[in-house]
């Protein structure tokens, strides 16, 4: 877990986002939630790349990604406090 930095430091060094993982991704990661710090200006695709180093399953079976509970593309820029959810192919019903 990254230490909570003073806000002026966070603004210079990066932004903190909350990651949520579900179903097969959650099991592969061994956790449902992660706190991540990404560089300012980072996009959804950058976070996916970063996380996939720890959790290859994210790339092995591509699902969808939601930011703040809305499906987004990989080019969407991340902001401080965003909730980023990695969503394996859904199978409700």
């Amino acid at each position, binding site marked *: 877990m990254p230490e909570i930095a003073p806000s002026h430091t966070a603004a210079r060094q990066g932004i903190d986002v909350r990651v*949520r993982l*579900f*179903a*097969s991704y*959650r*099991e592969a990661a061994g956790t449902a939630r992660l706190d991540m710090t990404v560089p300012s200006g980072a996009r959804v695709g950058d976070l996916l790349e970063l996380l996939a180093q720890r959790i290859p399953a994210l790339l092995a*079976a*591509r*699902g*969808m990604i*939601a930011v703040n*509970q809305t*499906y987004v593309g990989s080019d969407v820029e991340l902001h401080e406090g965003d909730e980023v*959810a990695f*969503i*394996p*192919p*859904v*199978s*409700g*019903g």
Partner: protein
Amino acid sequence: MTRWHSFRQSAVVSGLYRIVEGPIDEIALEDTVRTDADGAVIVFRGVARKFSRGREVVHLEYEAYPEMAEKVMAEIGDEIKERWPVSGIAIVHRTGVLEIGQASVVIAISAPHRGEAFAASQYAIDRLKQVVPIWKKEVWDDGSQWIGWEHQAVH
């Protein structure tokens, strides 16, 4: 049993969208969606099936991203309202362990006439399966698997 609190989104259409952990109270859902102007109430119940892909299922486990699932189900409700003159829509999905025969999802839709209610019900379950962040795990005697990968082409 769960008490449902419907909320009127307009003078005409009510909507109720929930992820729940226990059994779904279908009678309460019917009562929630029906108005005196309606001639039809369709209740669709999706149930846990024993045989899947040639294997025998012991039980199912459902997981959801509850906050987003309820939001996306409400969006499906909005899509339905744009297409058909329905009166009430309720979509409730259960999570956790389900035994064979238990209801995983119940969709109740009321309308003045049956045609709209049937069409809207079919649309609701088809869309739910495409976009709502819920996952099903099949548990067999000798293993288990999250379902969904077979639909990869859709994404």
